[in-house]
């Protein structure tokens, strides 16, 4: 440490302030730059808002969070199934219950994801810089389809074998059978319990952060007087 070092690096500032903290972050290399970017783009008031624009007061905006709730049940029941195994989930009453819980929470996950998709499609949810949010949502949907497919194959019963044998021709016909083989149980099971759920979970987190960054899109046809400051008559989030 030399006399020419700036005070924020030499520790000479005995009365730290918010400005000094920002200066310190600005000089903190990549970590400091990332911290500064996050503070500017995603302050805690945006990340965890206590008020939302009034137009969010509609059941249509509930579909997304219900999808996430269903995903939580899918993951929780899936973790139990992974730990205990097929002998348990096909034979014991508790195992069959958890197996059914996994199956039906997946059904609800898809139902509410598609309802959420309808709401965003007919409301043109990609407007005003929200195209990346829409694209990530599309990717989540597509990965979810593949995850459900590998799940059907991972059941360890005749249904799974039937689906796998029929699907291999379809997969081969599109030219990807060399690295995605429905008859390879280890590959299908590994994708289903590890890679694909992690991808979906991370992308859902990214999707929610993207929504927080830009806020929820205003309804189609809304004018400035309609929107006011965006919080008039606001509802709690």
């Amino acid at each position, binding site marked *: 440490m030399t006399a020419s070092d700036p005070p924020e690096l030499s520790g000479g500032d005995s009365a730290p302030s918010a400005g000094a903290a920002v200066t310190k972050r600005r000089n903190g290399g990549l970590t400091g730059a990332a911290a500064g970017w996050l503070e500017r783009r995603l302050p805690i008031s945006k990340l965890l808002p206590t008020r939302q624009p*009034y137009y969010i007061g509609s059941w249509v905006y509930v579909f997304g969070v219900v999808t996430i709730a269903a995903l939580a049940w899918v993951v929780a029941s899936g973790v139990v199934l992974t730990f205990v195994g097929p002998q348990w989930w096909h034979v014991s009453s508790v195992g069959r219950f958890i197996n059914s819980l996994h199956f039906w929470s997946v059904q609800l996950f898809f139902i509410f994801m598609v309802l959420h998709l309808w709401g965003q499609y007919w409301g043109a949810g990609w407007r005003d810089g929200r195209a990346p949010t829409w694209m990530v949502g599309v990717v989540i949907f597509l990965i979810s389809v593949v995850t459900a497919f590998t799940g059907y194959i991972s059941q360890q019963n005749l249904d799974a074998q039937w689906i796998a044998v029929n699907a291999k021709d379809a997969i081969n016909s599109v030219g990807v059978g060399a690295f995605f083989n429905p008859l390879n149980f280890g590959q299908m099971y590994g994708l289903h319990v590890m890679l694909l759920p992690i991808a979906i979970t991370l992308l859902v987190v990214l999707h929610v952060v993207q929504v927080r960054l830009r806020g929820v899109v205003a309804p189609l046809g809304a004018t400035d007087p309609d929107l006011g400051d965006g919080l*008039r*008559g606001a*509802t*709690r989030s």
Partner: protein
Amino acid sequence: MDAPAPYFHWGFIQISLPNLVVIGVMLLLFALALVLPFPGHADANDPDGDPR
């Protein structure tokens, strides 16, 4: 339970009764979400409304 579900055929469309029921329920849910009032939602056009 072991019997196959009834299927409907309209031209090139072929769909099972359970799948048709699910699609119908989804359409109903979507329509209800558009028209049912949201609880605790203040009227945006009411300047005296409770801005909760």
